[in-house]
Each structure stands twice: as structure tokens, then as C-alpha cells.
């Protein structure tokens, strides 16, 4: 068996694993992206994230979702940096909230308060509140230790509450 024919079964297996990874976690990654860049760009973030996952397929851990969130976060940050519209996006977050009675104006304030947080603090909040990750997995997604994540989360909650209080 030459090297070419020997390589093909491996490549096929890797593609099957990639498809399984996509089907298992693609929707969660897409939701993550939509929460941060809106629906129009989220599909691109999803594709870029899984292209990175393919290129780095030997690094994908068994618990892949936090790792994928970390990659998706980098993709999102690169886009936001380039377009310099992070603040507007987080403010826009509120406008996409279902208009439950009395909530729209309040959540516009929440969007503004979120935009005032440091990016790493905001991400700590959103990984737990929106992505629903427990601290250990959220820390992996944020690329930090659990201790650091706890500190960030505590600080973020406090500062967000403070910012909301100041808006009253």
C-alpha cells in the first residue's frame, strides 16, 4: 500500500468525525455567533469556526463545545475589531429581544450596560447566561483558569449591576 492509498481511509474518517462534530455542535456555535454578530454574519462565523476546527482537528478535545466557543469567539473578535462596531452590536442585542411587555426599553439599557463592560468580563457573563455553560467549561471557552473565570464573572456581575443602577 503506498502512502496515497493509505492516507485516504484516514482522511475519510477524519471527515466523518468532522461531520459528526458539526452536527453535534454546529447549532450551538451558530447560536453563539448570532448572539454576538447577528444573523446576517453568523453563518460566516459558523463556517470559519469549523474550518479552523478542521485545520486544527487533532487539537479538538473530547469536550469540544467550549473549544469551539473559544474558536468562534476569536473569529467574532477579529470581525468586530475590523469593523469597529462592537458597541453598536451589543446595543442592537436589546432590539432583537422579543418585545415582552415593558421589557424593550429596559433591555436596551441592558445592552448599553453590557457594552460598557470590558470584553473579557462581558464574555464571562454571556458564556454562563446565554450559552448556559457551567464555570469549568466556560473557563475553557474563555481560555482561562477556573479561578480567573470566577474572578471575571464576579466582577462582571457587579459592574453590570452597577451600570444598570446608574441608568435608573
Amino acid at each position, binding site marked *: 500500500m503506498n502512502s496515497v492509498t493509505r492516507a485516504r481511509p484516514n482522511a475519510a474518517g477524519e471527515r466523518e468525525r468532522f461531520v459528526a462534530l458539526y452536527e453535534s455542535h454546529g447549532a450551538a456555535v*451558530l447560536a453563539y455567533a448570532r448572539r454576538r454578530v447577528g444573523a446576517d454574519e453568523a453563518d460566516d462565523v459558523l463556517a470559519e469556526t469549523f474550518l479552523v476546527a478542521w485545520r486544527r*482537528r487533532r487539537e479538538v478535545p473530547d469536550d469540544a463545545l467550549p473549544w469551539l466557543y473559544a474558536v468562534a469567539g*476569536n473569529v467574532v473578535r477579529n470581525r468586530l475589531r475590523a469593523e469597529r462596531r462592537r458597541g453598536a452590536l451589543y446595543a442592537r442585542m436589546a432590539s432583537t*429581544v422579543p418585545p415582552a411587555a415593558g421589557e424593550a426599553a429596559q*433591555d436596551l439599557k441592558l445592552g448599553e450596560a453590557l457594552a460598557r463592560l470590558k470584553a473579557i468580563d462581558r464574555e464571562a457573563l454571556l458564556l454562563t*447566561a446565554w450559552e448556559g455553560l457551567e464555570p469549568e467549561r466556560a473557563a475553557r471557552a474563555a481560555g482561562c*483558569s477556573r479561578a480567573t473565570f470566577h*474572578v*471575571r464573572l464576579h466582577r462582571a456581575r457587579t459592574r453590570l449591576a452597577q451600570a444598570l443602577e446608574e441608568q435608573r
Partner: protein
Amino acid sequence: MNDVTDRLRAANPVKEPPALPPVEPLLARLTDAPPPPRRTHRRLLVPALVITMLVAIVVGSELRGPGVDVVAEARAALGGSGGIVHVVAREERRNPDGTIVEGSGTTSEIWSARDPLRFRVHDDTFEAAYFDGVVTTREDGKLQSTRLDEAGRRATEDIDRNTGLLQPGRDPVPVIQRLLAEGKLEPAGTTDLRGRKAQRLVGSESAPDARSPGVEVEYLVDARTYAPLQLSTKATLSDGRSAGASKLTFLQYERLPRTAANERLLTLK
């Protein structure tokens, strides 16, 4: 769960998983080229000293090789390895277009000591201390303590070996010493920094993939004592575009004696 978290959850703009696009267009974009060798995860640029205290899990190695003696001499000149290290640093981050990142420009202060490890850090609004596996924070006058699990404790206790190229850690001097020994930093001549003769130490981290930036690092240390003066990082994408930069200016670096009064600087009361 508190009100803020509940309110955030209520504001979640995507409450249900969206429909997943078909995978076929993505498969058409894959190449079967073997992936690059596995590498350790590179830390993000996190310039705030408060955060760098508790992050960076990169395997360290024993101290050896050229450059170490120089730093050992510097350590002696700075007051040896004992005592309480006191660092004041101002961080500044820039966007790719050169503008200042919103919220950057904070000044942080840290006191730390070894055997056993304890430290206290604070910036304008936040304060945290570590001792014996417990992190205590104070914000708006309110104290809160968290006992770390064993992994978190080990990572924190090992901070001097875990701090990587992009971060100064608790005490930049042993970090620089180790990075020189590992060959991750190299002397690159001297320069003048605000009228002070400074030794340049440079290093770099290559991009882990095509979309991520590589990072160039420059430490400026006092040419005589090796006291840290400035840590600059510059991130560049593979096509040459800037991906941002950061500068940490060390406003103060000193080693205080372990007096009862100075020991109190290490704790939150």
C-alpha cells in the same frame, strides 16, 4: 441566581437553537492536507495586570542557559529573591487602526511574596487577594471569598512558571529570567527610554493558524538592574495587517522588606 443573570437570560436574543445550514458546502472547502503539529494553546493578549495574575498555563522549564546570570545579578541588585515585590503598571491597548481600545489605560498595583505565595492586586475599581488557595475580592466595599479547587490552586501556586511571553505575571523579573533561559527572549541591544538606558529583550510567537495573528514582544528593562520598564506586544495577521497592540508601562518596581506593616499590604481586610 441573581437579578442580573436572570435579566441577561431574559434578554437572550437566541433562545432556541437555530436551524443548522447543511454541511456539504463546508465539506467542499476542506482540504485533506494533514493538520499542523499539535501545539500548546497560546494565550490571548490580556494586558490588565489583575487578570495576568491568575492566568497563563504554559509549561515552564528549569532555569539554565545564557542570560540567566545577568538576571541573577540584576535580582541581587534589586534586593534578592525574597521580600515583597511591589509593581505599579499602566496598560494601554490599541485597535488595529491605532486608536486606543475603549476601557484601556488603567493602572494596576500588585504586592506579592513567596513561601507561601500570597498577593494582592487592585485597580481603580477592583481589588483581589490570594492566600492559601482562597481568592478574596472587594468591589464597592463588599468582600467575597472563593476557595479554589485543587487544579485552580495548583495553577495559581505555579504562577511564576506558568506565566508566558505575553504577560508579566506576579513578578516580571523571574519571568524574564526564565524566558531568557528558555530562549523565548533574546537581548537585542540597548535603547533610550525617557532618558534611561534600557536593554531590549525581544521574542515572538508565531500564528497558530492562518486567521490568528502572530505576536512580537519587546521587553525594555533597566540596562543596569534589569528592573522592568515596559512590555510591548504587537499582533500581526499573516497578510501583514495589524491585529492590535498593547503596552504595559511599569511605573514602579521595588522589593520591600518583610515587615509587619508591609505584610499587611498582601491581604484584604
